[in-house]
């Protein structure tokens, strides 16, 4: 029986743009615009998309690192947005985050021991006397040696720093972790080490991940379900297998086809996308993808498509496109 650990409804995150003569808010960056999804206990939901699609903003809003403009965030039945500052601080014990940049994400002036000790003392995990044992255990868990306890971040490589960041998140025994591009700054060989570690931790500690990434290879490897975002909206969501093997949204398809395959004898047909991603300040009307979509029609320009199920989708698969059926049947041809 799967239970929903986290549920997001109609999340919006608008950042004001100041301007004009009096420096008033003249416009908004609609970074996340009406997004709903849930994460089941023990699973990994990935959010993928290109830069500026709002995936990181979503992750930060879930943790209330930036307070969202509107929406509902329910974690284990509690409405996170209704908590006051104090209550939220306590709640943070359950929700943690692992960042992208192994250099900027740990305080250069603290040793590993201080970093982990501080995490525990903020959330009052364990009595003081027992914390040392836990620190040693954490180091072992993430694959660092106990002899590295009193070292400073600059004495570690990027991959090892990322392990410190993981240990810090684990120090408070969280249930849920947002991994915000947690492996994208690492070299391939190190990235594989960290990915394996994250998978193993999930099994051992029954963790739930919201995994934010732009690399579809990484996403395929780590996820149970995947949500694809484009310009602040989820365009497609579903089980990993469905998204990768049975994508329905033209954006998902073109994204998958754009990635170079590391196999010279198996190069695939590419769907070409015109131009750049439009600005989230003034996003296109109707379907936000219509300006670049090879299948766009008048309807796409005017009506916002909702996430929906079509007949050959399985599981929880949904996509937000008006023309899924016509494209599938070949009735609609791409218009380059």
């Amino acid at each position, binding site marked *: 029986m799967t239970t929903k650990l986290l549920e997001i409804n109609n999340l919006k995150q608008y950042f004001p743009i100041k301007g004009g003569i009096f420096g008033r808010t003249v416009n908004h960056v609609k970074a996340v615009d009406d997004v709903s999804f849930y994460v089941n206990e023990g699973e990994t939901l990935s959010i993928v998309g290109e830069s500026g699609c709002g995936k990181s903003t979503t992750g930060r809003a879930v943790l209330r690192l930036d307070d969202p403009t509107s929406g509902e965030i329910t974690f284990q039945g509690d409405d996170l947005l209704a908590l006051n500052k104090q209550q939220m601080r306590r709640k943070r014990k359950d929700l943690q985050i692992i960042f992208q940049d192994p250099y900027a994400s740990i305080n250069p002036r603290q040793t590993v021991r201080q970093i982990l000790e501080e995490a525990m003392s903020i959330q009052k995990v364990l009595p003081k006397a027992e914390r040392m044992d836990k620190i040693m255990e954490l180091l072992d868990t993430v694959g660092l040696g106990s002899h590295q306890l009193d070292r400073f971040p600059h004495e570690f490589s990027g991959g090892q720093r990322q392990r410190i960041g993981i240990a810090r998140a684990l120090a408070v025994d969280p249930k849920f972790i947002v991994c915000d591009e947690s492996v994208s700054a690492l070299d391939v060989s190190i990235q594989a080490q960290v990915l394996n570690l994250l998978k193993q931790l999930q099994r051992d500690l029954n963790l739930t991940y919201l995994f934010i990434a732009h690399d579809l290879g990484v996403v*395929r490897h780590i996820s149970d379900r995947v949500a694809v975002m484009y310009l602040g909206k989820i365009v497609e969501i579903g089980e990993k297998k469905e998204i990768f093997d049975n994508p329905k949204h033209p954006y998902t398809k073109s994204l998958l086809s754009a990635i170079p395959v590391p196999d*010279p004898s198996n190069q695939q047909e590419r769907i070409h996308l015109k131009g750049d991603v439009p600005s989230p300040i003034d996003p296109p009307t109707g379907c936000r993808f219509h300006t670049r979509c090879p299948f766009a029609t008048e309807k796409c320009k005017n009506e916002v498509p909702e996430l929906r199920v079509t007949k050959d989708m399985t599981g929880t698969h949904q996509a937000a496109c008006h023309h899924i059926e016509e494209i599938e049947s070949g009735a609609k041809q791409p218009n380059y």
Partner: protein
Amino acid sequence: MSQNENVLEISDLRTSFFIEGDEIKAVDGVTINVPKGKTVGVVGESGSGKSITSLSIMRLIQHPGEIVEGSISMNGEDLLSKSERQMQQLRGNQISMIFQEPMTSLNPVYTVGEQISEVYRIHQGLSKKEALTKSVEMLELVGIPSPKERIKQYPHELSGGMRQRVMIAIALACNPELLIADEPTTALDVTIQAQILELIKKLQSQLGMSVFLITHDLGVVAETCDYVAVMYAGKIVEYADVHSLFRSPKHPYTVGLMQSLPRHDIDQEELNVIEGNVPKPGNMPDGCRFAPRCPFASDICEKRLPDLDELENGNKVRCWIYSDEWDGKAEVNVVDDYKTAGNQ
């Protein structure tokens, strides 16, 4: 490939940085050729020395770096013995380069037009007006819509993808024989990356130039290169045509790299990893530089550095396993045994 005419021949290149009296060998004895009209990729992780190799070709290594030894020749002419002035005449003319960061690689205080025109004015002595006309043509060629308006814009008014197109326009303005592309798409999103790679391929066949592509992305290599050199810790460990490399990689590092790559097109249970970290430049192992991380490493690997030996098919590999002196387990299949060897 030996019968091919080479545009560029690098042999035994060593480029070092001198920091507080220590010599840090960023590129340590690299030999590689770029055949005419072909694309040669150099793939490696950060710190492998691939970018320094490309800057060495351009002779753009800045203090405290220095090309210590080796030779780089283009069409038979030795680049290292040329004067700075002669190099200036070559750069942007016969050899061009594009860089990783399109956001910072253009001068913020000059318009796009001024920056492209400059190349024509230096190398072809065109007037301001003629150069500008040519620049518009060039922008059109690299697929920038309404080039006449774009030419008056400043870099900050363009997106990352557009800027990289402008960089390509600058690089290809004088129809160079060799284009050096240093991680040209790393900073871009995949859909934009696809556009840029497509563009480079298209222009390469149109203009008949050779491309020297630096990247860390095996996918990009597979898609664009004819030949590939794999670099590790300042040295080339494997050199092969792209099909052989991906079908039957020879060096354990190449294998490890491929097996640790999460793929979007196939399912993988568990990723194979390369244990440990890249050695620090000041603290290189005596023997094979990959030996401390190699699952097959044997005594000889730790003691002596293997040569980059040519195999029967003309490809090259720097590994004791393929030599007569190999003292480890007989009959090693690096691809299939990589994982089991690693778990021992």
